[in-house]
């Protein structure tokens, strides 16, 4: 089936990213937007746009009826869900198919199968993919017996989980009952479903995931790994590839396991197989993400392969022409996520208007964003503003470039995590590659930039304020072409904010 017009059922940077790929391929794009996103870059970029109204996610970007209706109305014959929102919703994939619209992603059955974390592990274990010792509910034993078999510490997770909700670490039998009760409550309130699973808790695990591409004719390849060790509350903050924790031998072994995982479930399109790697180089299947990942860009930088374009080609039935042996990694790429949040106030999301934004540009610096100057950040959606991705000859080169880029990333008006990211990138443990998923809580438990105002800052403020106070004559004499209505000529010194 030839894909001629794609509805991008998403917003922000990923909508822009997908539309760029469509435009390069000569495919028309349909953009959707809620009321608060009407002036977003993804709306400007789309060939056609349709409003979703009420910004509440369930009424807008999660509203299947509205999206299908728009797809049919606009004549889009495919939908790209991006990540988040409906990207891992099997029902949505099913509804698309019923409406005769190609869902760009795997089949509803695969999404459903991998969405159930217990089911996914069982499937993988049976297929011979290493899975972490745990309890999935089917073992004929009590939680106490399971803990004894697995050995403490044990991690409790919600089977429908994600984002760290419902997760608890139990270090002894005495702590078990209370932790189970609390995890059930959180799981119930977050997912409406309180089934739990247990697994062995790894003290210093590294998070290594493999990017997969699988066409609809049975061919599967991997595009190597990404390491996502720097996480906060199980949300990734900094990702890089290649991982310095694995060598070629282990890389090949893990790559084969990832392909086996995908083959086992007849996976199609782009996907990611996540593994945990312990200090003894044992790796365990964690879960499979049946969609495009936020951090896909670092793989694109080191392999030169455009993953989104391949998603579209695969969805239109094209065979995968890439050969595993010919796919190579070169250099080193690091991504960090720029969030509108205040690291000094418990990472509380910040809202407001982006008054000034000046991005670092240079060789091998990629910036994926869905916002621009004057953009108002609303409280409705994920606070990720942009992704900054750099590529270097090696890890050291890439880290230095990232530090430079973060130091030259001007974003005023909204509090961002940029200073926090700079501190991470400069930290000796990061520099040495001594990273695990507890990196942030270990080194940045109560991080604060705690600074007094340097003289330069006060000098700058004073000069700016004096210039605008009207006291000093002969400064900033803007010549204006405007006639009488100009504020420059009518009210003398005038400021937007005053």
């Amino acid at each position: 089936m030839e894909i001629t017009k794609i509805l991008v059922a998403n917003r922000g940077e990923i909508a822009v990213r997908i539309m760029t790929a469509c435009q390069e391929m000569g495919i028309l794009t349909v953009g959707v937007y809620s009321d608060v996103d009407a002036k977003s870059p993804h709306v400007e970029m789309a060939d056609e746009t349709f409003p979703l109204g009420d910004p509440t996610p369930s009424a807008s970007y999660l509203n299947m009826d509205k999206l299908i209706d728009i797809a049919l109305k606009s004549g889009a014959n495919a939908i790209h869900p991006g990540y988040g929102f409906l990207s891992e919703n099997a029902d949505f994939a099913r509804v698309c198919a019923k409406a005769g619209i190609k869902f760009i992603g795997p089949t509803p059955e695969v999404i459903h199968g991998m969405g159930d974390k217990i089911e996914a592990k069982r499937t993988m274990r049976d297929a011979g993919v290493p899975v972490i010792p745990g309890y999935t509910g089917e073992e004929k034993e009590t939680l106490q017996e399971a803990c004894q078999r697995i050995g403490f510490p044990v991690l409790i997770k919600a089977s429908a989980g994600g984002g760290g909700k419902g997760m608890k670490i139990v270090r002894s039998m005495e702590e078990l009952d209370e932790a189970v009760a609390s995890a059930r409550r959180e799981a119930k309130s977050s997912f409406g479903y309180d089934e739990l699973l247990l697994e062995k808790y790894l003290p210093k695990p590294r998070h290594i995931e493999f990017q997969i591409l699988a066409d609809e004719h049975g061919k599967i390849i991997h595009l190597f790994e990404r390491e996502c060790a720097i996480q906060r509350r199980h949300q990734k903050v900094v990702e890089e590839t290649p991982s310095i924790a694995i060598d070629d031998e282990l890389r090949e072994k893990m790559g084969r396991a990832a392909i086996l995982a995908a083959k086992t479930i007849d996976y199609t399109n782009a996907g990611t197989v996540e593994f945990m790697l312990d200090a003894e180089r044992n790796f365990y299947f964690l879960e499979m993400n049946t969609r495009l990942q936020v951090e896909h860009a670092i793989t694109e930088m080191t392999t030169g392969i455009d993953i989104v374009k391949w998603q579209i080609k695969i969805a239109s039935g094209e065979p995968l022409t890439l050969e595993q042996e010919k796919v190579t990694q070169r250099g080193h790429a690091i991504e960090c996520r720029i969030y509108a949040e205040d690291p000094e106030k418990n990472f509380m999301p910040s809202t407001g208007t982006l008054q000034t934004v000046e991005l670092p540009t240079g060789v091998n610096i990629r910036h994926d964003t869905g916002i621009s100057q004057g953009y108002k950040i609303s409280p409705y959606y994920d606070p990720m503003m942009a992704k900054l991705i750099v590529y270097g000859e090696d890890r050291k080169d890439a880290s230095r470039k990232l530090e430079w880029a973060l130091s030259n990333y001007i974003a005023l008006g909204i509090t961002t995590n940029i200073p926090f990211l700079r501190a991470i990138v400069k930290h000796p443990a990061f520099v040495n590659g001594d990273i695990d998923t507890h990196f942030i809580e270990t080194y940045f438990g109560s991080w604060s930039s705690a600074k007094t105002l340097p003289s330069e800052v006060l000098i700058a403020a004073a000069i700016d304020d004096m210039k605008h106070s009207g006291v000093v004559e002969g400064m900033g004499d803007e010549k204006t072409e405007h006639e009488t209505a100009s504020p420059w000529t009518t009210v003398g010194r005038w400021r937007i904010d005053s």
Partner: protein
Amino acid sequence: MELHYEHQGKLYPVRITRDGEAFSIGVGDKSFRVESKETKPGYFALTIDGKVTKCNIATEGNQRHIFINGDVYRFNRVEAGARPADFDKLPSSITSPISGKVTAVGAVDNDIVEAGQVLITIEAMKMEYQIKAPYAGKVEKINFKLGDQVDIGELLVQMEKTE
């Protein structure tokens, strides 16, 4: 002229005077000779005692956002005569630190509450934020109800501290 800035409860008086094409600026007991060039609105190249520093300024009412050497500083311009004590004083009004939707209200008007008691829960960007009583006292008025949309800076709760 003398200008005053406040950052994290600390006051910074700055004296500034014209000195020909340049400025003479006093910060604390130090004094600097500064040349300034505004390359485009908000973008400054400052030559401070011969050393060039580039910075970027955005202004929002009394708030100043300055980007300099990779760091962002956010602080306020205040009136002459403001005292640091004014900034430490226990606030009787609690304003919203965030924009979002009220998902729970934990007290009603005239309630006596303990320090740390959750007064209002606001959901923003898929996360919940609890607004707690900063001290033990009486809730005079809660301005929002369940389901309301709250904007950053809006007055949430009026409180009176128990003496």
